[in-house]
Structures are given as C-alpha cells and as structure tokens.
C-alpha cells in the first residue's frame, strides 16, 4: 500500500463516526461593516501605527510623490525608489522629485513603493498579492517599504478580506498580510526592528480616488 493510502486508512480508522454538524462562523466581529468609512479608515490608521508602521494621509494621488519625497528626506534616505505593483498613478505627477530605479534591487538598503489589494482595519495590516506587476520578495528585500492605500480599499476585518480574495479570480501564488516592519524578539524584548525584512514601513493613505 502506498504511504498515502496507508495514512488515509489509519486516519479513517481513527475518526469517530458521525462528524459534528456544520460549524458555521457566527459573526463575532463587532459588526464593523456598519461603521462609516471615515471611522474604518481611522481605525486602520490607529492599528497600523500600533504595529509600528508610520502613516501619512494625503487628499489626492497627486500629492503622493511629494509625501514620499518628504518622508525620505526627513529619514535621511535617498530619493531613489523602486516601484512594484500598480503605482503609475503617482508617477504621473509632474515635477516630482523622486528618481525611479530600474533593474534589480541591491542586496540591501533600497526603498520600494507598492500598492496593495486591501487594508484590514481591525488588525492594521496591508494585503499584497504576487502577480505580473509585483514580485513579493521586493517588499522583503527592501530596507524601506512604502505602501499606497486608497481609502476605499480599507475593509473592516479578516472576515471581509476572504470574499474579496475569492472574487479577485484565481488565487495568486503569494498573499502577504503585512503588519509593520520586520521584527524579532530573539535578541531580547522589546522586539527589534529589521530582522530580515524592512526596517521601516510607511503607509500613505490617499483619501480621494480621483487624481
């Protein structure tokens, strides 16, 4: 008998007859879907900050490039960024001061700007998917990860995220739920930032969906 057949046979022998009835997922969330969008966005910003990301808010896509430039300058970082995902909107802003990097990322130290599929308010995470436009390792190899979130992308909870993922067609190879920078507690508590992934996560929340 193959290993598969043997394991399945042993499993079937072990399980008791009469499986319990369908165990549904009762809505135990505090019904955040009823919250006005403004409150959802506010909650997301609070939770993201609690996860050690920093959050900036702009009114339109046109202001994104400047917001990124100001952030990098304040942090003493170069204005050169890699882009990954659907981020061309902000690149079309005339006169922006960013330099868009081409080619492969360096081993370490680069800044990457990505978009996201959604942002979950309850836990303060941004959701990124691999695909033709985004290679997930870019957001891990970079030292600084800047994420563009549109206000309408904020969902209340994980419960709201799963249907969104299902409706987006065949599932991508990798879906990342990212809460702040990379951390480790292996060198003592409180945990330290910059274990293998980014040292900084900057979320830029865009209020309007129009440019």
């Amino acid at each position, binding site marked *: 008998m193959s290993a598969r057949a043997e394991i399945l046979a*042993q499993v079937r022998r072990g399980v008791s007859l009469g499986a319990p009835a369908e*165990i549904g997922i009762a809505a135990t969330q505090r019904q955040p879907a009823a919250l006005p969008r403004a409150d959802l966005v506010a909650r997301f910003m609070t939770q993201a900050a609690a996860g050690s990301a920093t959050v900036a808010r702009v009114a339109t896509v046109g202001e994104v490039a400047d917001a990124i430039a100001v952030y990098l300058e304040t942090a003493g970082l170069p204005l050169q960024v890699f882009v990954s995902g659907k981020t061309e909107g902000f690149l079309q802003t005339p006169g922006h001061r960013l330099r868009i990097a081409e080619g492969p990322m360096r081993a370490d130290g680069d800044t990457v700007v990505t978009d996201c599929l959604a942002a979950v308010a309850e*836990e303060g995470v941004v959701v990124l998917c691999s695909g033709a436009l985004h*290679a997930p390792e870019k957001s891990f190899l970079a030292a600084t990860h800047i994420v563009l979130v549109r206000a309408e992308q904020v969902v209340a909870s994980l419960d709201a995220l799963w249907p969104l993922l299902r409706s987006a067609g065949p599932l991508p190879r990798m879906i990342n*739920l990212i809460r702040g920078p990379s951390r480790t507690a292996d060198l003592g508590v409180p945990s330290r930032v*910059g274990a293998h992934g980014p040292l900084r996560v900057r979320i830029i929340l865009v209020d309007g969906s129009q440019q």
Partner: protein
Amino acid sequence: MQTDSAEFPRLAREALQRTTLQGALREVRRVMPAIRASAFRALPEYADLREQAKNIRNRTLAGLDQYLIEFERHVLAAGGEVHWARTAAEACKIVGGICGRAGARSVIKSKSMVTEEIELNAELEQRGLRVTETDLGEYIIQLRGERPSHILAPALHLSLAEVGATFEKAHDRQRTEPLITAEPMLVEAREELRAIFQAAEVGITGANFLVAETGGVVIVTNEGNADLVASLPGTHIVVTGIEKVVPTLEHAGVLLRLLARSAIGEPLSSYTTLVHGPRRARDTSGPSQFHVVLVDNGRSRLLGTPFQEILRCIRCAACLNHCPVYTAVGGHSYGSVYSGPMGAVLTPALAGIGATMHLPSASTLCGRCESVCPVAIPLPKLLRHWREHVFAQRTGLAIERRGLRLWRALAEHPWPYRVVLSLAAWCLRGISVPGPDGGRRRIRWIPFVGEGWTGARDLAAPDGATFQQRWRRRQRAQLS
C-alpha cells in the same frame, strides 16, 4: 522520534543551577503572561472565538481524511506536488530526494518544529547539502549545535553575551570591538544571511495552517524570513504535520485571530502569508517547483483515542509561558523539541511513553495551561491519562508504585488511617516553629524526602489535630 526525556530529572536539577537560563525564564514569567492578558482584554469576543476555534479543530479532525484529500486536490491543480510520509525517516528521504533532483547544494529554512522532530537537517547534511536556518533564534542555536528550548523562541535560554560570542566565533569578520549590544548583532545577522538567502536553490518552510478549500499554506512570522525562503529559491518545500489542515479561509481567520494574541500579545504577527503552489505564468519570479510533504509520524494513531485532543494544538506556546514547571527548568530539560505542557503530552504520543514517562509526572496539574489554551485542550486531563497509562503498564518508578500501594492500604482501613495521620500531624507540629508575627506555625526542615521542598521554602504546619479529631470534638460539643 528521538528524545533525551529519560534524563529529565538530572537535566531539570542542572537547569535550576544555571544563572543565565534562570534569568531568561524570569523574564518570561515577568513579561509573557501580562502581554497575553492585555491582548485578550482588548478582545471582548475572546470566549466565543475560543469555543469556535476548538470546534473548528475538532470538526477538522473528525473529517481529516476528506480535508487532506481536498487540500491535495487544490495543490495539484495549482501545479504543486503533495507527498505523504508515514514516518520521520520517510519524510527525510522524500525531502532529500527533492533536493537531489533539484541539484541543490544550499538549502535555507524557516522555523518548522516538524523538521526538528524528524531531524531533517542531519539527513540533508549527510547528503552533502549546506543547510542554513534563517529564523534568527534557530540560526543562533544552529551555530551552537543546540536544540530549541521554546517552540517559538528557540534561543530563549541564551543571554545576549552568549549570542555575541557565538557570532564572533562563527562570522568571519574584522572586528574593532566585541559584540555586546543587540543592534550590531542584528545588523550582522541580517548581512550574513542576505548572501545565503540569495544563493540557495531550495527553501524549506513549515506551515501554521493548511487551507483545504484553496490548497493554501499559511505561514506566520515576525521576521519575514519565511517569505524570502518561499520566494527566492527555485524550489519551495513545505514540511507539515497532517493535523494542520482547516476547512476554509474563514476558519483559518478565526485561528489566526487567536494565534498571535496567544503567542505574543499582538492582533497579528508582522507577516501572515498564504502560499498557493509554484509561480504562475504571469509572475516575474518565484519558485518553479512547490512541494508539500504531509508528515504523519504517529499523529493518525492518536485519532479516536483520548489523546486526539492534543492534535488541536496551534503551537502558540501560551501553555509554556504560563507553566510553573517550564518557567523553572526551561525547554532543554524536557529532552524533546516539544516542551512545556503540550510537549509533556505530545512527546510521549510521538516517541513512546517508555522513554518519556518523566514528562507527564513533571507537573503540579495546576491547570494554568488549560485556562490559557486558545483551543481549550484539557492538558491536565491528558497528563493524568499518561500517568494512569504508566501506572497500569507498571513501567513507572518502583518507589512511586510502592508509595501509592502504601497509601491505598492506609486509605482503605479507617482505623490505621486515623492513627497514622494523627501521629504524623502531631510529629509535624512538634518539629514546627512559630510563624512570623505569631502567625501560623511553619516547618523549616524535613529530612530526606522533605528536603526537596524545605530546601527552598517553609511548609505550613498542621494545627495538631486532624480533621476527623476536630469533627468528633465538634459533634460532641454540639450534642452536649
């Protein structure tokens, strides 16, 4: 599964003398219960979620074969491969074979308790592969040739100074000053591992959950190392126990909402990742090969037995962090990769109770573990089951069996019981001394069997009369 659990008494005694370890465990006691409690105070629906989580795990186990088949179907449809391993040796052979066919020379790994359980690294190294752990704690103990001492924080038992010394010895660098603080150590580890990340041909991860509905593998980290391990090399292998499967994304969501809060007091960890198969046609990068190795290694044998409940475990380590025994002697004393209360139940189940009988006895059955378990595993009950097992099989310590026989003889005969216990109470009171400020009397020293207790603390002295004597006096007083 190989263990050193038979050495528990000696290892525990030695652990109590180790100052660095005791310092680390003091920190665990000081910090971990508080942050978990604070996270769940902020979650009013905790009791509901816990009930759901327990039901989800039970339901999955009750239909485990169907869910495994459904999971396999989706992985295959996504272009991945699924392998089934009955034993540790079989699992190692499968992984070794995949690495060989991939022409691998260098393998990177993220933390996976199952790979420790099956001793995968030793097997791969024997085949001439270079294996590097990328989880920082695992990396540190790999450099030292040690076993993990906590299921989430493998290097918990080490001081920062010991880590610094380890890096100084292992990393080939010019140094102007010794490594003392955490920041430069972190930078150094990051730099050393970057090069290894980029060069490896195979990446091996574990799995926190397997989603049957989508064929997805859920991997949870704070460092993001698993994401690099699963993205950079050309082959990604997931090694997992068969009990990790959950039916749908929603079910995974319930468990995820409990996992990070139980483990580290956060709503979610830094990275919660779902992986579905190898790279797609439109992807610009990613592994071209994706393998899931489903490991049984004794798990299916637990189904239908009272020990089935331990298969609900989601490896959050809350029971370890709250256990008075674990936080006194640390994980290495257990002689197994799984330590603490869950380890004391799971290790005998996987490795056989013969070599591990000390573990279920190393407990006061205080019940804190069960009260903090997010999936409500009745750990004290399972520990007692193991003790009953050992006693029934007559494989335990002779002195325990004789002691219990003596107690039983006394308890079954009221008159000798009364006499012996009255005498004992009178003797204990006789050797007691007054308590502080005229409080209850205490016993500072009991020779031989009592030294284990009185060596570290006083024993409250009995009042001098047994319950039965006082009861009789009270009855007489009431009648008159």
